[in-house]
């Protein structure tokens, strides 16, 4: 029953508003609690930053906790000079620049028809299940790879954005948000002579800004964090997105059969400070995305657009 949330059945009859100080105890406790939890969440990142600014020896002896030991920029100097790192970062940014708009466009264009009632859009249910089933059933790595290879996408940025162009989870989420859009708005638009296309972009999209901002974030994070496809689909490490690049240094150590050459490798990649600086630098751009998107999380949009 879409729209039911707009009319909370049991809205409030009893209880009296005790204004003032007593209630703030809750606010204070709540604030304190949330801040403590937030601190618990930020600790590992602080640890990683601390390690990245510590000397290699202190880090490998496990001395570094939350503050750098033997403060140094050495790891950042190394990373700064690592061409592959920055090249990969560019690939990742490019991936988001192409992938996220594509994800959003398709999500909106699929979610809108699917948000209609069945009597307003026959076959809706068929379409919905056709899309949804792809979320559950997969053919596995090999057929996926061969399909992309046959399309000639290997080793290009398109291999990273096209196969994941339709994020079903986002579609399902958005179609539900679209259903919450008050019917009156759509009806008045139709009366004004708007067609489906303009109704979608003039009414539905603006009103669902918080939802779309959320999906944009999900899409960006998804693209930023994916590493497996980069490793398998890119034939040249120069085309790796950043997380694929980083993945090769944050592997678990395996002493199964190591030659001395592997050991030299190990001394490079097991260096905690290098790892940490790259992990930190590698997550900075995407960490910045959320605070930026938060401005779309504004209440009262529905109200505002009805009034306006």
């Amino acid at each position: 029953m879409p729209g039911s949330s707009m009319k909370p059945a049991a809205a409030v009859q009893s209880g009296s508003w005790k204004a003032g100080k007593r209630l703030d105890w809750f606010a204070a406790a709540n604030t304190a609690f949330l801040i403590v939890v937030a601190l618990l969440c930020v600790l590992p990142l602080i640890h990683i930053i601390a390690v990245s600014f510590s000397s290699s020896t202190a880090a490998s002896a496990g001395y570094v906790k939350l503050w750098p030991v033997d403060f140094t920029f050495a790891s950042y100097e190394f990373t700064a000079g690592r061409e592959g790192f920055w090249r990969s970062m560019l690939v990742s940014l490019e991936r988001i620049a192409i992938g996220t708009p594509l994800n959003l466009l398709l999500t909106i264009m699929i979610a809108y028809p699917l948000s209609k009632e069945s009597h307003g859009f026959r076959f809706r249910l068929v379409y919905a299940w056709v899309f949804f089933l792809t979320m559950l059933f997969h053919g596995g790595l090999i057929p996926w790879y061969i399909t992309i290879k046959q399309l000639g996408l290997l080793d290009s940025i398109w291999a990273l954005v096209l196969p994941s162009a339709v994020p079903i989870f986002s579609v399902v989420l958005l179609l539900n948000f679209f259903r919450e859009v008050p019917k009156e708005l759509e009806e008045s638009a139709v009366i004004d002579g708007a067609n489906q296309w303009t109704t979608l972009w003039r009414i539905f999209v603006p009103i669902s800004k918080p939802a779309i901002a959320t999906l944009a974030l999900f899409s960006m994070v998804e693209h930023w964090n994916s590493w497996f496809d980069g490793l398998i689909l890119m034939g040249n490490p120069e085309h790796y997105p950043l997380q694929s690049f980083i993945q090769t240094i944050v592997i678990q150590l395996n002493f199964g059969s190591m030659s001395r050459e592997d050991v030299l490798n190990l001394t490079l990649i097991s260096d905690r400070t290098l790892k940490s600086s790259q992990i930190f630098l590698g997550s900075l751009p995407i960490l910045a995305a959320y605070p930026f998107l938060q401005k779309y999380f504004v209440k009262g949009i529905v109200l505002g657009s009805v009034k306006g």
Partner: protein
Amino acid sequence: MESKSGKKRLVHGLALLMATALVLSACSGNGKSGEASGSPSAQTQQSSPSASGDSAGGNETAIDPLGKYDPPIEVTTVRNLSDVVENNVLGVLKGETLEDNRWSRLYEEQLGIKIKYDWVVKGNPESDQYQQKMNVTLASGELPDFLPVNAIQLKQLAESDMIEDMTDLYEKYASPLLKDILSQEGSGPFDAATLNGKLMAVPQVEPSIERAMFIWVRTDWLEKVGLQPPKTMADVLAIAKAFSENDPDGNGKKDTVGLGLTKGLWGGSMGLEGFMAGYKAYPNIWIEGPDGKLAFGSIQPEVKKALQVLQDMMKNGQLDKEFGIKDGGKVAEDITAGKLGLEYGEQWNSIWPLQLNKDNDPKAQWRAFPIVTEDGSKAMVPEKFSTTKFFAVRKGAKHPEAVIKLFNMHVEKNWGETAEFDKYYAPKEAESVWQLSPVTPAPPKKNVTAFREIDAARKAGDFSKLTGEPKTIQEKIDLYNSGSKEGFAVWGWERIYGPEGSMGITDQYDKNDQFLIDKFVGAPTPTMVERKATLEKMQNETFVKIILGQSIDEFDKFVADWKKLGGDKITQEVNEWYASTKK
């Protein structure tokens, strides 16, 4: 167009080549077996391009192992790109890339072979990603001209009839030097690459000798607690006891551990193989019993005994109670922080993780000692079979022999008459330059040989005659001895090749015939494929729990279960395989 005529020429050239190959295979069929064991002097002569003509039986169209393709050919392959190559080689060599570097130029100029990579994957070849990339490549059906595969992939490719039979090609095109080098590891690597009597790939022979185990001991602690280097297992236990109880780090706290262990139990650093060998227990490898049959080491009663000892050590507080959740990286932290002074590991341990400890505490000193037995008798050193890379050639490749020529050239330029070690193997500015080559065969005993040469020079007091790798290594030792800061960073090398280095012990092991190599070198048997993961899980779970204090009788239950759940069948299959190699 130009390419068309080029193609035509190529076809002609190919036809000619095939014809000569036919003629040759007919006449070289006889003297096959003698070739590989030719005298060294003859080999070096043959391997130089000028001399090769007459050595192959006076035939004018004889195959020159180092001959040039004219016009040049292009072959495709795939490879990995390790961090070392990326940072320490390509990162420092200006003007060289993975596609265009001294090795690729050498191959192109001298052999007329241009190498093209279908793909390059970052990481090491054992990584999941590399293996998956290889598997999807195999599945997509478009193989490069030649490709490095593991034993399983090799078997699957051979069974699918997708790769060339290399038996004759290897005989014909491998230079005597290459044949000599690849045979130094015994017949194992070739047994592993031979399916149904045919050699299906060229094994890139890796030295099992490098897998030898040592006891790495912090000798500054040893002095502090007043003990001697271990001669028997009782000594080892005494050291472990003293290291955990007598406060070797002198901080007044009982915060040190007697023996380094990881949650994985086995492996080249902090592994238990060497410790167990002290009780004549050889887990994880296949050993030959008195009846000539192969048996699995993990289920022998000797393992039980070794586990009992470890359990007692745990009870007495000499082991880390938390070892069961720590991987090698975590235990390495304990070593670095100076909490641990005794561990079993391979010769490279001084480079990692022990160097970290040295960096952290310059007074720390480590030394490798030979592994010991209970009664002080000769210890047998278990070794895993380490050849895991096989170069297979796609069926129908235009020049199936090209990969062998690359092999020839690689060994020639590094260890042959025309070797240019400082250019192609390990120039000072980029010591891993040899890894730029797609094929990297090396004499399996090269590190021991290097040690022997250095040692001889050391004893003679004259290092001037050293060349190649031994020279480079000696320079590192000199650097360390100079006491400079750079020298400090190569302490790990001195611990390997110095007068009391681990390689000296490998040398002894080798001379005393102390190696016990895994007898099973084939591709996994059907039941192994099905059950090995389950059996391994059971084994490691049981062993860890016993060490942590569970009843030692669990071992007998494990043995019974192991047999019942597929172990007996695996043993049977392994023995069938073993019998087939003896034919």
